[in-house]
C-alpha cells in the first residue's frame, strides 16, 4: 500500500539553513547536507529545500548544495524558490534534484507548468500554492504569501493539474506558524477534486495534527519545518503514532 509521506522542509539562504535549527547533537546545525542526511536516517520520506536567497550568488550556492545533497542523501528531494524558467529547472535536475517546486512564476506565466511537464515529465513538477481564506474564499497569494491575487485556490489548483503539475504543495497562510493544525477542510476539497497527490503545509504543532490531516484532510503527504527542526516532534515517534491510527507509513 502506498504510504503517507512525512516531509521536513529546510529554508536555505546562501547555502545555509536558516530559522535556527536546534537538532539532536549536530556539530553544525546550519549545514543543510548534515541535516538532510540526519533526516534521511531518522525516517523522513522526502525533503524539501526552499531557497530564500535573494541574490544571484546565493542561487549559485544553491546549485552546489543540491549537488552535495544528491551525492550524500539517498531519499528523494524537491528544490523550490526563485525558479522561473526551463533552464533553471534543467540545471537543478542535472545537479541531482528529483523534483522542483514553482510558485509565483507559475502564477505570472502559467504556461511554465506545461513547458516543464513536457520537457521533464509531470512527476518532477510540484506547484506550490500559498493561499489565505478571506471572507470565506480561499485566495491564492504571491511572493511568499504577501500579495493577494484574484485566483481562487481550487480553480488554480485544477488549472495547474490540467497543465501538467504532478503534485500540489498547499500552504494555508491562515494556519502557517500557528501550530494549531493543518487546513483540513480546504485539503480534503483539493484531494477530492484533483487526481494528483496533495502535500499539506502550514499549521503542524502536534502529532494529532498529522493524524487529522491524513484522516480528515485526505492529504497524501504532510510538510513541516520548526516542529521537526526543534525536535518538538520526532519523525520516528510521529510515524509510530500514525501507524497506531492505522495510517499507512514507512517504518
Amino acid at each position, binding site marked *: *500500500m*502506498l*504510504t*503517507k*509521506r512525512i516531509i521536513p522542509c529546510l529554508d536555505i539562504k546562501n547555502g545555509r539553513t536558516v530559522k535556527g535549527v536546534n537538532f539532536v547533537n549536530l556539530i553544525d546545525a546550519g549545514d543543510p547536507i548534515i541535516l538532510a542526511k540526519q533526516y*534521511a536516517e531518522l525516517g523522513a*520520506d*522526502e525533503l524539501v529545500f526552499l531557497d530564500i536567497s535573494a541574490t544571484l550568488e546565493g542561487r549559485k550556492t544553491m546549485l552546489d548544495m543540491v*549537488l552535495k545533497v*544528491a*551525492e*550524500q542523501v*539517498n*531519499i*528523494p528531494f524537491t528544490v523550490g524558490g526563485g525558479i522561473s524558467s526551463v533552464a533553471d529547472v534543467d540545471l537543478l*535536475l*542535472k*545537479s*541531482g*534534484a*528529483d523534483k522542483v517546486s514553482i510558485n509565483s512564476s507559475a502564477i505570472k506565466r502559467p504556461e511554465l507548468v506545461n513547458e516543464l511537464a*513536457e*520537457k*521533464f*515529465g*509531470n*512527476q*518532477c513538477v510540484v506547484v506550490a500554492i500559498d493561499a489565505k481564506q478571506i471572507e470565506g474564499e480561499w485566495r491564492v497569494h504571491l511572493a511568499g504569501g504577501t500579495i493577494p491575487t484574484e485566483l481562487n485556490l481550487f480553480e488554480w489548483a485544477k488549472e495547474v493539474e490540467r497543465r501538467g503539475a*504532478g*503534485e500540489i504543495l498547499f500552504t494555508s497562510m491562515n494556519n502557517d506558524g500557528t501550530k494549531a493544525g493543518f487546513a483540513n477542510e480546504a485539503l480534503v476539497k483539493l484531494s477530492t477534486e484533483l*487526481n*494528483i*497527490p496533495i502535500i499539506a503545509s502550514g499549521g503542524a504543532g502536534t502529532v494529532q495534527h498529522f493524524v487529522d490531516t491524513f484522516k480528515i484532510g485526505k492529504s*497524501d*503527504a504532510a510538510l513541516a519545518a520548526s516542529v521537526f527542526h526543534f525536535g518538538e516532534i520526532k519523525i520516528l515517534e510521529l510515524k509510530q503514532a500514525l501507524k497506531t491510527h492505522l495510517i499507512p507509513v*514507512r517504518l
Partner: protein
Amino acid sequence: MKIIIIDYGAGNIKSIQFAFKRLGFEAVLSHNIDEIKAADKVIFPGVGEASSAMKMLQQSGLDAVIPTLKQPVLGICLGMQLMCNFSEEGNTKGLGIFDVAIKRFSSAVKVPQMGWNVISNLKSDLFTGIKENEFMYLVHSFYAEDCTEAIATTNYERPYASALRKDNFYGVQFHPEKSGVEGSKILENFLRL
C-alpha cells in the same frame, strides 16, 4: 568493474551515479555503442515521456543494441518500461525484451503514484537480503501488468509487476538509487550478478 549508465538524454542520471559512488564504484555515462557492449554492467535509466525517450534511443541506434547485450542490464523506471513490448504512453512500441504491456493507472487512484510502497513476491538474486514487503520509492503513472517475468509485485489500484527479469535483463519500476539503505542493497546485488 566497468559500470556504464546509458546516456541518451533521458532522466536524472546524477542520482544513479551518486548511488554507485556511495557504494564505492564509479559508473560512467556513455552513449558509445562499443563502450556499452564492453561494459560489465549496464544501467538503462529514464524518466519523462515514453515516446520521446524511445525516439532518442532510435536516433542513437541504441534501440537495436540494448536487446543484444549479454551482460547484466538493469532498467530503472521508464528504462524498465521501454524494455517491454508496448506502452500506452504515446502508444509507444518498446524494445520487446519483456513480454508485457505498460498501462496507465485509472483515475480511481491518484496519478502519478508518488511515494513509498512495498515490493512483494520477490523472486531473484537481485533481492538477496531484501525482506518481503520492503519499502521502495516510486514515481510513475504507467505500470507493467503482472506477468510470468515478474520478480516483484506492488499493489496500487491492482497488483502489478514492479520488477521484471528475463535472462540477463532486469527491470525495476522503483528507484533503488532513492530508496535509502535497502535500495542501495539492490544496486549492490546487481553488481554481484
